[in-house]
């Protein structure tokens, strides 16, 4: 690096900063749109031109979590006065919260769908990354007969868009009773992510000098112990990066979730658009559901950001 910067270099730097800002704004605009809509009153959600300044409301989230029905007549003043604040915001929208015979508030379908998403995405990520790490280690460290062909075969599973096998998969799943089950989706997502995970992890494994394990082997450790004590900590960066990518894929998957699940194991992506409200589409509720849905990936990625930065540039640094 030159210590002295020429004016053209400074100019280039400034242009680059502006370009990065513009791109960032373009990328963040939809997220702002979703987030702001999630806090808007219903009547401001679809105004033209869009409302930018408004009094944020929590009502979309209340409506998201509670089961509602249309009010036939406005609530009486006594009813209104007796209701807690979160019920009043629903009354204001011309709806009421559905309660069972004992007066318990009924949940909407969203929390269980959200849980389904978490269960399926986390389990399939753990499985895909775990199996991928072991497989990659094997390919990286041992002479495997037909290694190149096997690796190509693993990669070839990604050469078609997965949706092309949706119908046969659906028929097979129905035959063995895996449709609308967590296990069914977990198997599918694990299978989709595995090839990616093997290839990515192989790159990371190849980067770890095999001398580390050999030193451990000679020191009296078994291959397994050497793997867990030495290789795994060294591979943490790769595992984190792979896990984020697998998690995002599984978390966002829409087509198979839509086809394979209906109630019990339905994940959030096919559920959110189906809840367009009990009357006209309530975009604020959809936005609230989407907004919450974005959070886990954002948090996960944020927690692993240091690993990811190294992961993105793997191969480029340290040799």
């Amino acid at each position: 690096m030159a210590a002295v910067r020429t004016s053209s270099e400074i100019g280039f730097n400034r242009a680059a900063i502006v370009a990065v800002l513009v791109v960032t704004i373009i990328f963040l605009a939809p997220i702002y749109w979703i987030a702001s809509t999630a806090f808007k009153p219903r009547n401001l959600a679809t105004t033209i031109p869009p409302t930018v300044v408004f009094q944020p409301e929590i009502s979309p989230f209340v409506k998201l979590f509670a089961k509602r029905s249309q009010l036939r007549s406005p609530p009486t003043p006594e009813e209104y006065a007796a209701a807690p604040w979160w019920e009043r915001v629903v009354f204001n929208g011309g709806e009421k919260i559905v309660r069972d015979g004992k007066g318990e508030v009924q949940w909407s379908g969203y929390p269980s769908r959200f849980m389904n998403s978490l269960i399926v995405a986390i389990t399939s990520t753990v499985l895909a990354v775990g199996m991928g790490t072991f497989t990659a280690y094997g390919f990286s460290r041992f002479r495997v007969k037909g290694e190149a062909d096997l690796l190509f075969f693993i990669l070839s599973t990604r050469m078609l868009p997965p949706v092309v096998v949706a119908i046969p998969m659906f028929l097979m799943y129905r035959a063995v009773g895996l449709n609308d089950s967590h296990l069914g989706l977990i198997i599918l997502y694990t299978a989709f992510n595995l090839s990616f995970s093997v290839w990515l992890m192989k790159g990371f494994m190849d980067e770890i000098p095999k001398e580390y394990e050999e030193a451990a082997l000679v020191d009296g450790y078994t291959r397994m112990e050497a793997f867990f004590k030495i290789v795994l900590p060294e591979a943490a960066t790769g595992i984190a990066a792979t896990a984020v990518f697998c998690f995002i894929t599984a978390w966002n998957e829409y087509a198979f979730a839509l086809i394979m699940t209906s109630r019990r194991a339905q994940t959030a992506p096919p559920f959110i658009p189906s809840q367009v409200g009990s009357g006209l589409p309530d975009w604020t509720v959809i936005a609230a559901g989407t907004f919450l849905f974005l959070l886990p990936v954002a948090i996960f990625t944020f927690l692993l950001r240091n690993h990811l930065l190294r992961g993105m540039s793997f191969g480029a640094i340290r040799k």
Partner: protein
Amino acid sequence: MAHIQLKNISKSFGNHTALIGLNLEIADGEFFVLLGETGAGKTTTLRMIAGLEKPSEGQVFIDGVDVADWGAAERDVALVLQQYSLYPRYTVRENLEFPLKPKIRRLPDAEIKDRVDRAARTLRIEHLLDRKTDRLSGGEMQRVSIGRAIVRKPRVFLMDEPLSALDAKLREALRTELKNLQMQLGATFLFVTHDQIEAMSMGDKVGVLNHGRIVQTGTPQEIYNNPRDTYVASFVGSPPMNLIDGRLVDNRAVMAPMNFELPFSGGARTSWGLDTGGATDGRPLVFGIRPEDVYLESGAPVEARVHDVENHGVEKILTLRVGDTMLRATVPARTDVEIEQPVRFAWNPDKVVLFDKGSGVSLRHAS
């Protein structure tokens, strides 16, 4: 401490043959240096003794026991590599403790602490114990690597070019330290290197490896003074031995193609078991002479021109030119010579080594 024997070892990787019919014996408490160029099969030999590689053929014995079925862990050897043998996430202390903590021979904590402290004292790295290994210099790292080996009191120390990545000064210092350490521990060392100076200065015994075969085994003096063939002669020694084609005629060595002659009579001749009558005369030979046994003298038999002068402080290394033939001579630094100056030189006939021209094998080793 252990005695190691390799019997008829061959090793191939796919189509590539790394070792062919290797026989090697390392005595208990010996500092054995395996010397060879890159790709000669040194590291493969080492890895087979360590149990990291299986021989395609042949057997490895440790203390007379065939260890074919023993894994690396059971062989109880220590390995020091050129690099990458320290764990970057661990501190120096954790690195030193690591070999003492495997399940199969886990030591009590007090013993671990005691051994680590003792090793640190021996290697003078006590002040580094709490440092992360990525904050160490090259020399410190290699000290810790050696520390990792000595804490365990293994049966054999295997060292794969442990000094090659270091700068010259440090290499020299660690060379002495390592040799002292070996004598202090009385341990069996197998040290692999491509650096003949390391081999000569450290080894009790040296094995020269070329293209997967052991060419010669012996003390450094034997290897230096009596190389088995022209490969060893040119590989060992710096500058290497002069090798000149020629033949014996009467009591003279007649060099081809430039036809200069040097005396080779009496004692020199009989020491090679050659008859004095001249019956072996005319056989194509290669004459080997070390640069320090070539000397300049005003009345000497051959005239040459000084082609090049390298000043090494205590001595100068001259390259002499006779026609197209070049040969090196080591002379005291005070000798005043200039490039292209005509000089006269002779050799010490008792130090000449005769090689067969065809096979390159020394006449002394041929039978």
